């Protein structure tokens, strides 16, 4: 059976380094299979977070050959196995141990986003009527599995560590799902411009590139939100018209 080398980052919050592990590989294996094999045969203490092995739980996020990917969805047949396969934890978040990172910052950010605020019910029984076309647009955003690969690849967080001032692509998708919902009446544009820092995004589209659910994050969520922020704060004609309408 052929063998391949996996260069895995081992360490914790105090530091670490890459270790080489050579293991047998077979047809149909994904990176997570190889990591589990190494864990079983050579490094019992190797820490790795995983759950569904089907690309739906978003647990096994890591950087494979430098690109953020789900380990369970990355086939070995798609990688050049004649060279070592590098597996590192996500760089945007603090390392807990080996491939496991502390992504709890994301949950804190989510709590700061204004929740869904529907308009009054359309019918006496407390229900609403929504046109299919209106709700279709936000369905794409609901595919998100919160793997945080988009947060990991975003250079605003990864390179510049602006976690205090920038919510990141995942939460622009989340906000877009709420803000564009046909029933929602909340206004989150001030938050987007202010504490969520959407202006930091410089549209590199890296988030779209790495999304395992193929959500068109930049074009369908971030840019439409940027345009709504322009409507509200930067377009003088819009502001004038708003002023005239409100008397």
């Amino acid at each position, binding site marked *: 059976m052929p063998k391949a080398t996996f260069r895995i980052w081992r*360490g914790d*919050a*105090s*530091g*670490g380094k890459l270790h080489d592990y050579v293991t047998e590989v077979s047809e149909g294996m994904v990176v997570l299979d190889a990591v589990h094999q190494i864990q079983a045969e050579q490094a019992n203490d190797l820490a790795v977070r995983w759950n569904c092995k089907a690309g739906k739980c978003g647990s096994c996020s890591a*950087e494979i*050959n*430098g*690109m*953020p990917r789900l380990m369970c969805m990355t086939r070995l047949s798609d990688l*050049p196995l004649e060279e070592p396969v590098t597996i*590192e934890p996500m*760089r*945007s978040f*603090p*390392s807990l141990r080996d491939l496991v*990172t*502390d992504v709890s*910052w994301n949950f*804190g*950010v989510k709590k*700061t986003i204004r929740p869904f605020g529907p308009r009054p019910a359309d019918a006496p029984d407390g229900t609403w009527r929504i*046109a*299919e*076309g*209106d709700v279709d647009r936000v369905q794409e955003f609901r595919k998100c599995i919160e793997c945080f690969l988009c947060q990991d*690849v975003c*250079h*605003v967080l990864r*390179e*510049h*560590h*602006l*976690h*205090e001032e920038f919510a990141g692509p995942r939460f622009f998708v989340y906000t877009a799902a709420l803000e*564009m*919902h*046909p029933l*929602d009446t909340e206004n989150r544009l001030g938050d987007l*411009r202010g504490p969520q*820092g*959407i*202006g*930091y*995004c*410089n*549209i*590199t*589209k*890296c988030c779209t*590139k790495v999304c395992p659910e193929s959500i068109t994050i930049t*074009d369908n969520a971030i*840019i*439409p939100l940027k*345009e*709504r922020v*322009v*409507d509200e704060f*930067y*377009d003088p004609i819009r502001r004038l018209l708003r002023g005239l309408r409100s008397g």
Partner: protein
Amino acid sequence: MAYAATSLGARRFGETTRRDAWWAQPLAVFLGLGTFVVYTTWASLQGEHYFSGPYLSPFYSPEFFGSSPHSWFGPKPGWWPEWLPWSPAIFILWAPAGFRFTCYYYRGAYYKAFWADPPSCTVGEPRQSYWGERAFPLILQNVHRYFFYLAVLFIVVLAHDVWKALWFTDTASGEVSFGVGIGTLVLAANTCLLAGYTFGCHSLRHLIGGGLDLLSRLPVREKCYGCVSALNRRHMPWAWMSLFSVGFSDLYVRLCSMGIWTDLRIL
């Protein structure tokens, strides 16, 4: 939103564990955009060889002032300062240039290729400081929709140029007759590609319906939103094809005007 720094350490400029040719795309953008900017600057400052028969270079259209028969308001104005270089393109080229410069696609592309911010996804950057588009000067990118309004006017003018490129004047008799030359097709293709790029603009997508949550109540705008979204999905190819076509259209007219190329009449 408290946060503890990662233990993996910062990367140096260009450092990455990526194995693919991550530098290829930013390099291609750098060469493509760089070549276009250099050629456009040179061609727009020439002030000559920008028209040939019924053809007018898109870099010079609309020609507000100039010496060609396409000029709207006559020759170079007398008030133009002698010390300033003169070209009819100076009056107009800032508008399409501004439209492309503030375009969402190009922004992402040239931030990578010209400013290495980042050089490519997950590749180390040269600078630690970062302001993004929330502070001066890049906050001015929010003016994009205004450049879009101007770009639409240019599409109308260029479409009119294609119409004019269908009418050829016989040099001997002065008689005007309908015809189609290779130049007509070049200008027509250029206008179509520019229209595909302009009408797939992210700002238009927002203005036409993207900014509304209850779009189904406005069926015409809903249809338009669908059409703009379809173009928008291919905004990058439209951007590059139209960039190439506008440069080539100028080159075609220029070489015909200089007598290096001969325009073939199809009809």
